[in-house]
């Protein structure tokens, strides 16, 4: 059984990642916030021993995803709020900055795969299990996203320069 101090620590550790991951599923940030809170509350009520989970991170990701997908349907048109994000540090390679702008343009389900594959370093078989899609579909989504980035980065003036 996880005590309250430990519970809080886990919450604070995983909250930012879950919030960002949730944004690849819905643009409704209050909904993501609510869902994360509800998720942890239900763990608390059920006295789930979070420390005993084999892969806590994966468990949290899958639980958040299932809950968000279920609620997202009910909330109909709330998808519209889009994330207010701009400015990136100036010390960065201007080329990298542009590629990031391309990433932001990708449809959410592609961003989600990129998050799991290239940020969380998961294999495609793990991803296909998490998202409950076939291995091939997972690969296709990723391929399409990379293709989009590749195609468009060629058009960026700074990439053409070398």
């Amino acid at each position: 059984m996880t005590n309250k101090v430990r519970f809080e620590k886990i919450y604070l550790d995983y909250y930012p990642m879950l919030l960002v991951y949730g944004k690849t599923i819905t643009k409704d940030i209050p909904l993501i916030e609510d869902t994360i809170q509800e998720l942890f509350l239900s763990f608390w009520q059920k006295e789930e021993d979070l420390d005993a989970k084999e892969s806590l991170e994966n468990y949290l990701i899958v639980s958040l995803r299932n809950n968000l997908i279920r609620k997202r349907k009910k909330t109909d048109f709330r998808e519209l709020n889009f994330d207010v994000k701009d400015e990136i540090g100036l010390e960065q390679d201007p080329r990298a900055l542009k590629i990031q702008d391309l990433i932001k343009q990708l449809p959410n389900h592609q961003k989600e795969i990129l998050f799991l594959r290239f940020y969380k370093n998961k294999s495609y078989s793990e991803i296909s299990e998490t998202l409950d899609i076939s291995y091939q579909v997972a690969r296709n989504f990723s391929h399409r996203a990379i293709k989009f980035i590749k195609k468009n980065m060629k058009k960026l003036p700074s990439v053409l320069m070398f």
Partner: protein
Amino acid sequence: MTNKNIYTSFDLEDFIENEHFRNWVLHEDHNANIFWEKFQQENPEKTNLVKEAQSVLLSLHHHFDTEIKEVSKDQARSSFQEVASKMEKRPRDKSKRIWLKWMAAAAVLVGIGFFSKALFNNDILLKTYASGNGERLALELPDGSKVELNANSELQIEPDHWNDLDTREVWLQGEAFFEVNRKSKGTKFIVHAGDMDVAVLGTQFNVRSRGEKAEVVLAEGKIVLELNDQNIEMEPGDFVSYSKIKNKVEAKKVKVADYTAWKDGMIVLNNTLSEICKELEIVYGTNFVIEDEELKKRQIQLSVQAGNLEVILKTLKLLYPDEINIDHKENQVIISKLVSKY
């Protein structure tokens, strides 16, 4: 080092999918470092590709990393405060019954899992319509709405989310003209175009999302644009362009026909030569070079039939027979000033 041979045939995607490569770029692994430095020295023609792959991988990583780091500790703490206050009110349930309930729920979830897996395996999760160089496509969406896709554009939909009650959503890269059917249940239709979302019930409009700018021209009805924190309501004849990077919104009244002429196979040129060439570049996928500063700024007004690029170039040449020279070779068009013979 026998692997080296494999790597010389890698493309960008192969590189970023390769674990060894990722370890080098993301974790600065020492051994990998030596290997990849050496690889680049021995294969100088691959250096650009390696750098591009590195750039894409770092950008991907950085994109999510920045977002996560932007969630402040205070935000996390105040979120936990809300959870903590509810924890007091909701005592832990000691009864065994709750497990039965959860087991039932799990069984239902497993059922749903099987069902959706069967669906997803058919690869119908996402449908892509794409047009190539100089190509236009007329599409009909599952709800009967009509879309005309301009050249070099891509439209994606999720076919299993087009039931009566669903919000209809499409993702656009490029340019398209929409005739959206109004649904009796009043469900919305959203075009995700770069940084802009266009929300409508039923109407006609043109959306263009190429590069950093997204533009909308409304032909009929009413639409609402949602940009960051502001909503813009558009009337017929309104043009709005939005660049998130520059945080710039431009709104004006325009002649709708100029913006939708491409549908009827017309290209309306009413701009500087350099802007016009950019447009032709997009439509025909051909590279344009203008070798004269004065020519670049030259204002040109002309409507031409889209189709053969050669014909368009001839028309352009006819406008200034004594002034410009157009050289079209394969994928490159060079426009230069005609040197006077005197």
